């Protein structure tokens, strides 16, 4: 027994000699103790309250208070206070009921030698039981505390989750907004590109031109310009602004405007009927824009090429651009032509040089942006100039439209699923065998309806002056009517009835057909927006456009490279397909 304190023993016994026997036995056991002996139930209960025993010994049968009662009282007072019954005789049944009632042990009076160890054992057990209970209580407290903390933490987590959900919702809203802004940026950039950066294809006899632009995710400032000059000279300018988005698109548009301005300015300088040279145009345009480019920390690569179809030579200023691919029909092979000028916006005061290269009918020229050569595949390889050259060699014979389109497909297939990081721009020009223009004439009229007569007269005279073969009368009548309707549409609708505007009329006779072209600066016309004509007699107008379409073999409404709106009418000289006024539905 570990305790050093005296063990406090309460002894219930009505027979003094028995009490003394027990005392003696305890003293023999060898542990220190104090004992209080009581002989009655009342005294026992009082002692329980006052004496604070460590262990209780109780005789089984007292006259007024038996062992069972003692057990009950003791248990009530303290469930862990050990109680040992000391008795004379005890049947098995009684012993079981004692233990059931809560006694820790029992010792027979004729075997008192066991008492000491029984007491020690019971006290030890009680201590263990108390320690156990304390531990349990502690565990319960700890558990409660833990549970409390879990609840608190859970609440915290739930709050955090709620916050997280809110943050996710907000983040999604922000992403959606950002996406919207981005797509708006792309959309605006696209619109700028379509309207300001990309020009209409020029209509140059003897040239086939196809242009293709595939915008990347962000719009680049890729642009191209066609300038159709008299005397069979065509300028093609292809440029690429560093950077992306609206700013690049606007910078492209600004650069483009500088080229128009520079050309216009140089055209006013008399130079014996000669067009200003590409290098002079580039140098002047660059001087106008270089400071802004440097300030904006941007630059423009550009290729300015003039095709002289009469002399069959091209002049090129290559300002850090990709160069152009020149495919020769004679050899069936291509080479990349390069210049060595700096990009625009690098150095103030830069003077640009040009190179000259001869070409022949059947040759193909391909202008391209670095979006093509710098497209990457999944392995990170560049499409490169070699692949481009090989593609041109293999496809140039198919004509410009198929070349541009097949090139786009080849680059897309090469890049696979990787998104294009750069615009793909390509312009393919095939030098055709020149159609021999047999006659050409032009005139200028003002937008007064009284001038319609002059238009008719001009067309009729032009046609009737053509010899070998003389055009059919039906063909002439149809052209006169179509020309009249085209001119009157321009006066009434494009110029809204203003009579002081000008209309340029051009007539050209090709071996197979006669072409009439009307150029004006009035509002453009899109035949797709026109309602079909009502021919049941309930409408008195709206026939003009329909009559034009029925009178000639081809009508084109377009905006030319100088921003003029044009209507071009083509009619075959022989009325092969149908009589002029034949009406298929007419029985």
């Amino acid at each position, binding site marked *: 027994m570990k305790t050093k304190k005296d063990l406090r023993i309460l002894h219930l016994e009505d027979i003094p000699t028995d009490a003394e026997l027990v005392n003696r036995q305890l003293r023999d056991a060898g542990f220190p103790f104090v004992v209080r002996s009581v002989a009655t139930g009342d005294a026992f209960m009082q002692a329980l309250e006052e004496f604070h025993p460590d262990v209780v010994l109780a005789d089984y049968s007292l006259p007024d208070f038996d062992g069972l009662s003692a057990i009950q009282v003791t248990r009530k007072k303290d469930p862990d206070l050990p109680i040992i019954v000391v008795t004379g005789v005890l049947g098995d049944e009684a012993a079981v009921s004692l233990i059931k009632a809560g006694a820790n042990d029992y010792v027979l009076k004729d075997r008192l030698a066991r008492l000491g160890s029984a007491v020690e054992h019971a006290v030890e057990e009680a201590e263990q039981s108390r320690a156990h209970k304390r531990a349990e209580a502690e565990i319960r407290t700890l558990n409660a505390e833990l549970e409390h903390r879990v609840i608190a933490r859970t609440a915290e987590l739930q709050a955090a989750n709620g916050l997280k959900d809110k943050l996710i919702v907000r983040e999604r809203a922000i992403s959606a907004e950002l996406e919207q802004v981005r797509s708006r940026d792309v959309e605006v950039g696209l619109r700028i590109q379509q309207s300001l950066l990309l020009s209409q294809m020029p209509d140059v006899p003897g040239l086939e031109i196809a242009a293709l632009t595939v915008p990347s995710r962000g719009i680049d400032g890729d642009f191209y310009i066609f300038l159709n000059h008299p005397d069979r000279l065509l300028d093609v300018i292809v440029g690429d602004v560093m950077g992306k988005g609206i700013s690049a698109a606007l910078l492209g548009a600004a650069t483009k405007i500088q080229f128009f301005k520079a050309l216009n300015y140089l055209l006013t300088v008399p130079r014996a009927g000669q067009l200003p040279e590409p290098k002079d145009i580039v140098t002047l345009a660059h001087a106008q824009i270089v400071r802004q480019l440097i300030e904006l920390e941007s630059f423009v690569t550009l290729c300015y090429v003039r095709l002289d179809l009469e002399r069959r030579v091209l002049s090129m200023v290559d300002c850090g651009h990709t160069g152009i691919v020149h495919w020769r029909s004679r050899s069936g092979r291509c080479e990349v032509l390069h210049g060595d000028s700096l990009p625009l916006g690098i150095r103030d005061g830069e003077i640009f040089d040009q190179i000259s290269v001869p070409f022949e009918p059947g040759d193909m020229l391909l202008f391209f942006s670095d979006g093509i050569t710098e497209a990457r595949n999944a392995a990170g390889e560049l499409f490169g100039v070699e692949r481009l050259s090989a593609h041109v060699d293999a496809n140039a014979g198919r004509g410009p439209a198929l070349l541009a389109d097949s090139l786009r497909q080849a680059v897309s297939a090469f890049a696979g699923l990787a998104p294009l990081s750069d615009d793909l721009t390509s312009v393919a020009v095939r030098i055709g065998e020149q159609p021999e223009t047999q006659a050409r004439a032009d005139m200028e009229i003002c937008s007064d309806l009284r001038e*319609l007569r002059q238009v008719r007269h001009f067309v009729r005279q032009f046609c009737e002056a053509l010899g070998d073969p003389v055009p059919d009368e039906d063909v002439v*009548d149809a052209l006169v*009517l179509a020309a*009249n309707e085209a001119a*009157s549409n321009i006066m009434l609708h494009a110029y809204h009835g203003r009579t002081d505007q000008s209309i340029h009329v051009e007539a050209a006779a090709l071996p197979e057909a006669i072409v009439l072209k009307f150029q004006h600066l009035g509002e453009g016309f899109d035949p797709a927006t026109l309602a079909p004509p009502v021919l*049941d007699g309930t409408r*008195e*107008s709206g026939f003009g456009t329909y009559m034009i379409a029925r009178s000639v073999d081809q009508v084109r409404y377009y905006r030319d490279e100088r921003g003029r709106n044009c209507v071009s009418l083509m009619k075959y000289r022989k009325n092969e397909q149908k009589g002029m*006024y034949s009406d298929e539905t007419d029985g």
Partner: protein
Amino acid sequence: MKLTVDRIGDVAAVAVPVEELDASNASELKRDIAPVLQANTKVVLDLSRVRFMDSSGLGAMLSCLRQITARKGDLKLCGMSKQVRGAFELVRMHRIFDIYLTRVEAVLAFQSKPAGVA
């Protein structure tokens, strides 16, 4: 536009006095012929001087027809050149109008046949 109206019985025959009827003078014709259309129910429009007619001229013809039809009258055309006939056919107006080769045929048609049958 000075119009001359010839009366043959109850038929009024009007010659269009220009060689070219286009957007520049079609509205003039419409304006000047209106009184004739108001005063008569049987009108012959003689186009034999007209060498060229455009869509505005066709519009003027339709305008005349509608005005007189609204008054239960009838309009017949005559003297079309090849070009004018062609323009009518191009927009299928030859199906809407009663068209005769000569002024006499047109006037006779009013007298011998019910309106609307050519």
